């Protein structure tokens, strides 16, 4: 039995099959919208936290505001409760001097969490905000190992009653979003807003790339540090007085 298939027939057949398979999908590729606006690298959102103006109560107010804003509820276990921002009391063992500062995701320029994420769920937006795309997070928790600031939490149990603008769930990783839902609408993060009432001027939010923004003017006048600056990850959260 001869099994010959002429080249012409094979090519024609393949083209026909390919056409039948691909045709339905072509209709779904809409023409690209004219200039989809959105996060741009012309902006770098950042925070300036002045420890000298802070009080422990102001820090607690900022933490409480974040929990309320994002609907963070305690989990069944304290060590499994998500915490996007926390108050850290830092004491110098030699001098005895202590400060309380709020620490959250530092929104690094070179985030180790984004480097290690296998699916790219942990990513840095063009305007500097580091987020977790929970649609593609597989819950491996490797980013939690990699973050130098212990900024990430995991969804250990079923979550309900989420805020409509702050989705989060069981089995995926979550962290401070710099209140991206507020920022994208022109607002400021909830922690900054609450801290402003409790300790005016202690937390400042703004565009670090804009030389005219209040934050840029302030950081050019005072000495600022970054937590673990030796790691070279270039956090977007700057501290003064720590």
């Amino acid at each position: 039995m001869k099994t010959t298939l002429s080249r012409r027939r094979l090519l024609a057949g393949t083209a026909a099959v390919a056409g039948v398979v691909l045709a339905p999908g072509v209709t779904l590729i809409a023409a690209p919208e004219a200039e989809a606006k959105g996060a741009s690298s012309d902006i770098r959102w950042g925070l300036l936290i002045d420890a000298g103006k802070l009080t422990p109560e102001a820090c607690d107010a900022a933490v409480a505001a974040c929990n309320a804003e994002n609907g963070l509820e305690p989990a069944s276990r304290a060590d499994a409760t998500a915490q996007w921002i926390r108050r850290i009391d830092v004491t110098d063992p030699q001098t005895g001097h202590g400060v309380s500062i709020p620490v959250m995701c530092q929104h690094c320029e070179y985030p180790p969490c984004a480097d290690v994420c296998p699916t790219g769920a942990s990513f840095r937006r063009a305007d500097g905000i580091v987020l977790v795309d929970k649609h593609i997070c597989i819950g491996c928790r490797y980013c939690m190992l990699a973050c130098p600031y212990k900024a990430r939490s995991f969804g250990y149990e079923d979550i309900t009653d989420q805020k409509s603008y702050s989705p989060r769930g069981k089995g995926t990783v979550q962290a401070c979003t710099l209140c991206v839902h507020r920022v994208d609408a022109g607002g400021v993060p909830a922690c900054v807003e609450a801290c402003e009432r409790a300790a005016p001027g202690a937390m400042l939010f703004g565009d670090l790339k804009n030389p005219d923004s209040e934050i840029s003017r302030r950081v050019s006048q005072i000495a600022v540090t970054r937590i673990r600056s030796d790691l070279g990850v270039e956090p977007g959260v700057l501290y003064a007085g720590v």
Partner: protein
Amino acid sequence: MAKIEFLEIEGRSPDYYALLGGLALVVVIGLATAAYVDHAGHIVTGMSNQIPWGLPHVFAIFLIVAASGALNVASVGSVFGRIMYKPLSRLSGLLAFALMAGGLAVLSLDLGRPDRVFLPMIHLNPKSIFVWNINFYIGFFAIVAAYLWVSMDWRLTGLSRPVGILAFIWRLALTSCTGWVFGFIVARQAWDAAVMAPMFIVFSFAYGLAVFLLILMVACQWTDRPLGDAVVRRLKNLLGVFVAASLYFTLVMQLTNLYATEHHGVTRFILFEGGVITVLFWLGQVLIGGVLPLILIWYPPFAGSRSAAGLAGGLVVLGGLAQMYVTIIGGLAYPQILFPGKQVSSGFFDGVVNGYVPSFWELFLGLGGVAIALLMIVVAVKFLRLLPLSLADAVADPHYRPAPAAEAPEAKAETAEAA
């Protein structure tokens, strides 16, 4: 040396079916546990935001590292040309495949979203060491399968050296990457070290060979196939070398950290103040996994004993699990340093050593992975010609000389010297 023959095991005895049933039961329990944890959430495990990885990862990474090392036996035969190891290459390939499958099963089932396990293959971040690992694991399966094929197909034996070399290089890269999973993490004092890659390679040699020796001895014992002293002696001596090298790397890593003041905290934690971690390090990794096996392998009163060799293999496996626990959990338990030189405290467990109590679910999941590997081995030797019919000295030892009755002591001395 006579031509080695391979034959499927008969596998029809009640004991065989009992073994199959027992392993299958453990596998089913492991899978059911994974389903439960997926449904209820990881809250039912002992893991927390401070210790996000736990006992399942200890088992998984041990199995993966041992899988890579188990292929070493085949490499010694194919790549380095040691004749005695050549008949062992089929079993070595099978063990590598099975252990890797068991380890990956545990790792995949522990994910927060195991339904998305294939996502990293479609939507991947090329900078992630995990993605490199996934690619190496997939390639590992393909290469081991290819290696088994060229080992078993008499028409392709000419390819067994090139494929063996490829497998060897692939393994080195794979195990280095597994070490780099921890070595690349700058955020943790206990890890962030280049030495973790070669250290994991040496660990893999030791754990893989220990598992291989154990399974070889058990398989030959239970199928009444002769296993000569020469093979056992050569394997256990090689195991001794690898265990000694593992101890060396452990020493290098801890001593280096001990010298640098920056790392004093974490080294003090692991070596002295870590509670369970310290006990597992000294008792588990160093004593049970290192010193005791070396004594059993080389100390003259034990050196000739086969049961000592088997026991040494078992102790190395236990020591390996302890080492993985110390590396993974110990590395996570030690607090992250946000403010070097300062004391910190917070409501999110900053500045304190984190506790971890594994739950039974995690143990079942880990054991389920071990059972998957063993089940694959038990089934494969029944349907494929992987286990040699005989590894008696007369058949397997390249230096064997039949001892004439009068010269028996001399011949024994010669073979002992050749081993």
